[in-house]
């Protein structure tokens, strides 16, 4: 999802909807021996002000607030260390990352560390970069790394203080190693568990010494294995889909076929005749979410049978009835006129007019569904004045506030139990809390009918595909030219795409002067163009849109890196050499470019079998403050079929907390990007989504997965994210490789059969 540093530490919701964040007062460092001593913090500094990782003692200040290590770490009398994760684990490794940070400073025994999802709590668990408790924008490590390390260090200090008291020895003589507390002179040596109760009675320290990087045992090492591997390989990991509660009813729903339609009337006779159907009820929709008809049963399949037996008449007077072809035609017409100007320097039109070599093209991108493997779902249990929610929560406090508003409760009265999410890719961070509030709305209607037990809303794959909140459709119209030296001389760029943030609580901060920054993030960057013009149209189509893994970069990165490739060829220069020149003042871009090119053997020609064409392409994209370059190698067969053989990736995400998680996220981001490049599109016909399941919204399968090599740039910069940045460079790298192989430019995604024509 979307984020930039300028939003740092600002609340993203209107006042009143959420408690205000804790104000941060500041003070200077306290001096101490043996490394950096920080004033302890409960809320860490926002990344924009972050003085880099501890160990960089030369800068920065720490906030003066009360530390609350018990909010993040608990040590049991059995010696087990439980880390409370304020972030959702949706596959990206956040639980492992947060636990690594705590365990590092605590000197815990990794085999004793486990992670539990923290409850929703806007005060304790806010994402300091988003202003709400939420996981997105690849911010988990960026916002929490210091907070988690401080929590671990505080807990360690309390264990040491307890031991010093018990043994009557100076704390300075006590060491902690791998889950044990030791005093060498007196040969005391006990596990954390033996000191846990005494440690909890110790005052929380006012100052902390964090480790310098040379003392790391876990950070940067491959030893910490994912904390969720065991449960996810033996079937015991709990997803929302798996929640079973006494008296629970499963709700399967009939959604309107078109966005904006509402139920007019329905006939439930056939549904109610099915053995096992408990009830059929209409529930209210609202801003950003469907109203519809829900069939309740104790068994999911029976509920679905009941849903399929319903006859519902819909009021479509306010429904969206356009087709996506007509919408794209409208986008093209819009692109004929100027939009809202976002950037301007020099005179792009004049420079283009007198240029010898110029390129001119439209680039088109479809709607994309997130299609996580676990379709959206949510469990809600309502009491007289209470609400409990079980869910893989990506926006805890937005969902909590939304549920409270719908029920007339205070946010604190809505208790959220955090579970694993079977994927999300942004979908579970809905600014309107759509499916969560749908579940609440159904539970509310059920309670009115006397069903007091919990309700589990389960979307079928079809609802998940058709219920909207897609990556917006986009059209880019670009005219660019090179000068006599081959460098880009002019670049005129128009984007037509729906605003993700308009009409959401994020609009206040995310839309400035009519520009939704997620529509344009990264476009043309980091290239410096003397004559540049960039503008934006943000039409409202009535199709619900939302952030989708790497957000605007999914299209801006593609166009920028394909256009630069076109300019390189126009200049008669090698695409890596061309970028090297253009990026000479951007050392982190340049470093990943050089690393990926070297590891890929860029200068070694590819060998092609008879009748086949092979090509190599490169792209480098910075997103969410991480820098990623990818080199793709492709084979195009005589029949026009494409195989991406190999992708070499170089990533700079600052301090590498868990290198293996970083590699995994690059591998996954590459596969995710490749699915979109090759196959994915949601299309509408007369307002009805044409795709429904994996046969017509195909996923990447193992046979299409290239070999992937990931290389991590060593860095002492503050950690940035890895969940999203692996995705944006993939599609342009593949498109550029296709060009190298076939001389054909791919300007419309997905690729589909374009090479077969």
């Amino acid at each position: 999802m979307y984020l930039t540093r300028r939003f740092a530490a600002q609340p993203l919701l209107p006042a009143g909807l959420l408690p205000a964040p804790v104000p941060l007062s500041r003070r200077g460092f306290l001096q101490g021996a043996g490394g950096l001593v920080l004033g302890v913090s409960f809320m860490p500094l926002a990344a924009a002000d972050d003085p880099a990782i501890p160990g960089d003692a030369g800068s920065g200040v720490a906030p003066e607030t009360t530390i609350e290590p018990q909010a993040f770490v608990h040590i049991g009398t059995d010696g087990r260390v439980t880390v409370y994760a304020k972030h959702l684990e949706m596959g990206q490794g956040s639980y492992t990352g947060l636990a690594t940070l705590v365990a590092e400073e605590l000197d815990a025994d990794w085999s004793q560390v486990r992670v539990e999802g923290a409850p929703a709590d806007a005060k304790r668990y806010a994402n300091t970069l988003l202003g709400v408790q939420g996981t997105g924008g690849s911010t988990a490590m960026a916002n929490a790394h210091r907070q988690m390390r401080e929590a671990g260090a505080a807990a360690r200090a309390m264990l040491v203080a307890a031991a010093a008291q018990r043994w009557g020895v100076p704390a300075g003589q006590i060491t902690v190693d791998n889950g044990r507390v030791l005093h060498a002179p007196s040969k005391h040596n006990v596990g954390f568990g033996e000191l846990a109760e005494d440690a909890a009675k110790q005052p929380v320290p006012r100052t902390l010494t964090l480790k310098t990087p040379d003392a790391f045992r876990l950070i940067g090492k491959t030893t910490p294995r994912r904390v969720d591997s065991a449960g996810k390989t033996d079937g015991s990991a709990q997803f929302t889909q798996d929640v079973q509660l006494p008296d629970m009813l499963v709700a399967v729903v009939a959604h309107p076929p078109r966005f904006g339609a509402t139920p007019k009337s329905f006939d439930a006779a056939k549904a109610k005749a099915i053995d096992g159907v408990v009830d059929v009820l209409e529930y209210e929709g609202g801003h950003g979410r469907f109203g519809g008809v829900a069939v309740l049963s104790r068994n999911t399949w029976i509920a679905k049978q009941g849903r399929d037996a319903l006859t519902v008449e819909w009021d479509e007077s306010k429904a969206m009835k356009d087709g996506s072809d007509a919408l794209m035609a409208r986008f093209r017409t819009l692109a004929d006129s100027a939009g809202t100007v976002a950037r301007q320097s020099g005179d792009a039109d004049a420079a283009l007019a007198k240029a010898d070599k110029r390129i001119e093209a439209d680039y088109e991108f479809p709607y994309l569904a997130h299609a996580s493997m676990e379709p959206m779902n949510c469990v809600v249990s309502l009491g007289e004045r209470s609400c409990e929610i079980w869910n893989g929560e990506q926006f805890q406090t937005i969902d909590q506030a939304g549920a409270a508003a719908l029920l007339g409760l205070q946010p604190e009265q809505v208790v959220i139990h955090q579970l694993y999410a079977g994927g999300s890719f942004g979908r579970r961070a809905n600014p309107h809390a759509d499916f969560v509030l749908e579940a609440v709305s159904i539970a509310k209607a059920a309670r009115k009918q006397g069903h007091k037990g919990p309700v589990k809303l389960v979307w079928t794959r079809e609802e998940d595909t058709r219920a909207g909140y897609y990556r917006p459709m986009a059209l880019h119209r670009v005219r660019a030219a090179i000068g006599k030296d081959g460098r880009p001389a002019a670049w005129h760029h128009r984007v037509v795409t729906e605003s993700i943030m308009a009409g959401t609580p994020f609009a206040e901060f995310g839309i400035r002067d009519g520009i939704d920054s997620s529509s344009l993030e990264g476009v043309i960057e980091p290239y410096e163009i003397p004559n540049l013009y960039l503008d934006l149209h943000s039409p409202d189509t009535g199709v619900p849109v939302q952030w989708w893994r790497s957000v605007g970069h999914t299209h801006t990165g593609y166009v920028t890196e394909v256009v630069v490739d076109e300019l390189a060829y126009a200049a008669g220069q090698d695409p890596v050499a061309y970028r090297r020149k253009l990026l000479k003042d951007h050392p982190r871009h340049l470093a990943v470019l050089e690393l990926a090119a070297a590891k890929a053997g860029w200068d070694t020609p590819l060998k092609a079998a008879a009748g086949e064409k092979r090509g190599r392409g490169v792209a480098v994209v910075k997103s969410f403050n991480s820098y990623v370059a990818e080199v793709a190698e492709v084979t195009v067969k005589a029949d026009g079929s494409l195989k991406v053989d190999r992708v070499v990736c170089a990533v700079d995400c600052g301090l590498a907390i868990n290198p293996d998680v970083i590699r995994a996220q690059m591998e996954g981001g590459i596969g995710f990007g490749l699915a979109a490049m090759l196959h994915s599109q949601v299309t509408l016909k007369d307002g009805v989504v044409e795709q429904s399941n994996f046969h017509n919204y195909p996923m990447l399968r193992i046979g299409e997965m290239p070999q992937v090599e990931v290389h991590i740039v060593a860095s002492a910069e503050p950690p940035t994210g890895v969940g999203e940045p692996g995705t944006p460079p993939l599609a342009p790298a593949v498109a550029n490789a296709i060009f190298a192989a076939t001389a054909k430019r791919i300007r419309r995604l997905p690729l589909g059969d374009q090479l077969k024509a």
Partner: protein
Amino acid sequence: MVKMTVNGVERTHEGDPSMPLLWFLRDEAQLTGTKYGCGMSLCGACTVHMDGQAVRSCTMPVAAVAGKAITTIEGVGTDKVGKAVQTAWREHDVVQCGYCQSGQIMSAIALLQSNATPSDADIDTAMNGNVCRCATYVRIRSAIHSAARALKA
């Protein structure tokens, strides 16, 4: 009434025999390790073994498993191949979101039971029906090779 064994335990289903096995396992037998992904045998998240063969439980009516032995992810840890695959999955940290992985593991076990030393191409063919949206495929290949090596040792 349909009788079967699930992970060695006798089970009886007295409801609609056309109910897919998936929903019997998840909602009746409370074995939730087997996942719903598509309901059309398109993604493999619901893969279980029926008399040792990998099948998609989301489209397999309970009636069709009468008298059969069903094994789910909860039951494979005691089997030599099952254990080797689970161990390899952990050593390679294959999982990301994890939702598809029960099905991936069940397909991988079935592959290794019929082909002790699969090539990359064999793996791609055998595993092509199992979708992983997180695209953990690189590690799935490595983990299957690892499990194959461990079983030969």
